[in-house]
């Protein structure tokens, strides 16, 4: 009886052993033939990045003109806000840091730093960080699969971002944005916006695509792209701090223009021959067909030869020859205000 039980036990052990060996063989074959766990091939984005001063130079370096909302899919509400906006509003304590929204990565003359945050039991990458200025919040892209917090939760200017890889492309989704300018002349996005950012690496080139969806101030997604290249020197995060400056605006006063009273809505016509129906923006101004509308008016004004350029005509005084990226000498708010005389409430 005991020997029978022993034989059965041995037979059982042999069967289990055989099953284990077969399973091991099949598992090994499966690993050789087709990976079972699909994992993205993550690219190391860490380092300092600089953007060539050739793309969208007026916006990035000079700052937008007071009435340039061309190519922005502004809704009626977005347009009304833009045309009533005064740069003096940025001198108010509660609005001083409004410029430092997430969109700044597309339109500011920054170099940026990107670095990973590691964590977890295997010290894997749990987030990617983008940062320019010390006190602007940066963008932290969580890669650990965490869920967004409640939509009612107030968040910092850094907002909340999660990301995933598609091949070697990093795709990030941002929620909990604060209201901020997409263009520093009153072209705002609301705090109901969401942002999809795509980071496409090509060796030492990084292409960033921002896609801003705002149900309040836009009628369509606002898409923007920018090329970055690896910087030869570390990016500095030093930048004028986000502090309140006295610009002659009394406490409690909100500078603005009443409808039809903004005296700064003719710069685009004066400088670039762009009529108001174009400079006021709207989704139609983003598409080639809009040129047909502009053509007749333009050729009526300039049938044979356009008006000569007299302002904002040059590059950066030859600085490209030395490969230097010009840095603005004043804060973006001050720069933006340069062409925006103090409003009279």
């Amino acid at each position: 009886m005991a020997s029978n039980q022993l034989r059965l036990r041995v037979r059982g052990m042999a069967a289990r052993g055989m099953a284990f060996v077969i399973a091991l063989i099949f598992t090994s074959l499966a690993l050789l033939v087709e990976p079972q766990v699909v994992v993205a091939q993550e690219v190391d984005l860490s380092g300092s990045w600089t953007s060539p001063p050739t793309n969208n130079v007026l916006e990035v370096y000079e700052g937008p003109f007071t009435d340039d909302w061309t190519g922005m899919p502004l809704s009626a509400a977005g347009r009304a806000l833009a045309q009533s906006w005064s740069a003096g509003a940025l001198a108010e304590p509660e609005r001083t840091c409004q410029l430092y929204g997430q969109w700044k990565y597309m339109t500011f003359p920054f170099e940026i730093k990107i670095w990973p945050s590691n964590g977890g039991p295997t010290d894997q990458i749990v987030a990617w960080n983008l940062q320019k200025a010390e006190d602007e919040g940066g963008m932290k892209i969580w890669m650990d699969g965490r869920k967004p917090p409640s939509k009612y939760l107030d968040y910092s200017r850094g907002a909340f971002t999660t990301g995933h890889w598609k091949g070697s492309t990093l795709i990030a989704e941002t929620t909990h944005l604060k209201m901020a300018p997409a263009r520093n002349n009153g072209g705002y996005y609301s705090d109901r916006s969401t942002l999809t950012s795509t980071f496409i690496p090509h060796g030492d080139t990084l292409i960033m695509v921002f896609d801003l969806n705002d149900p309040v101030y836009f009628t369509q997604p606002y898409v923007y792209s920018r090329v970055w290249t690896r910087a030869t020197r570390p990016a500095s995060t030093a930048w004028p701090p986000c502090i309140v400056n006295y610009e002659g605006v009394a406490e409690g006063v909100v500078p603005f223009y009443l409808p039809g009273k903004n005296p700064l809505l003719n710069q685009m016509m004066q400088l670039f021959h762009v009529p108001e129906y174009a400079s006021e923006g709207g989704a139609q101004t983003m598409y080639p067909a809009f040129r047909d509308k502009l053509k007749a008016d333009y050729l009526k004004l300039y049938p044979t030869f356009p008006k000569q350029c007299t302002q904002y005509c040059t590059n950066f005084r030859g600085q490209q020859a030395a490969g230097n990226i010009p840095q603005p000498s004043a804060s973006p708010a001050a720069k933006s205000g340069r062409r925006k005389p103090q409003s009279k409430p």
Partner: protein
Amino acid sequence: MLVSLATATAVYAQGQAGTRGAPSAQAAAPVDLTGYWESLVTDEDWVYRMVTPRPGDYAGVPLKPNGLQVMAAWDPAKDTAAGEQCKSYGAPAIMRVPEHLHITWQDAQTLKVETDAGEQVRLFNFVPSTAAAQAPRTWQGYSVAEWEFQRQGAGRGPGKAVWGALKVTTSNLKAGYLRKNGVPYSEKTSVMEYYDPVQESNGDGLMIVSSFVTDPVYLFSPFVTTDNFVKLPSAAGWKPSACSAMW
């Protein structure tokens, strides 16, 4: 565990295309760029693209002093009389012209890009031809193409190609204008471009074309730009128009 790699792209170089056993460029394509596309001109250089830039305006272009002289001599009437009204539609500038694109495979190794603005045709050759590269210079020059693959796998082997981009290098160009107002590029110019498809938040297809224009004659440094295109479901909006020197 996610593994950081220095690069996860692999290049489907022209040398592989057409060799015995290797799939054609069309068969190997990691992304489908074919179809109709429309320029999406957000405010990126809108005033230089949607209207004729002011004479003498070269903001953002790293133009050398000799380029300034050429620009100062811009005369659209003279260009038209000389039959050179397509000078601002050459490969270094054509993707910035507000337009529609029609992308098709001319054959299994050649991608064809047609534009309605200026009615230009670009051919992206995955199998380079020395003879074609030495042909007379043209506005669109001679372009060599290759795929860049982005892979996804378990860290064993190269993984499966799940995404990718097109890289195009163009030379053998006829001298022309980077902008309609006579900002020049020379015939020694070369253009390197990436074509990256992405998806818009509303579900539409997008294509980002990043261009690096290098000209040792008139430019201090590469003229780097990006242009966005949105995918169209049909040819609606396709409106061929001849080159214009003035508009």
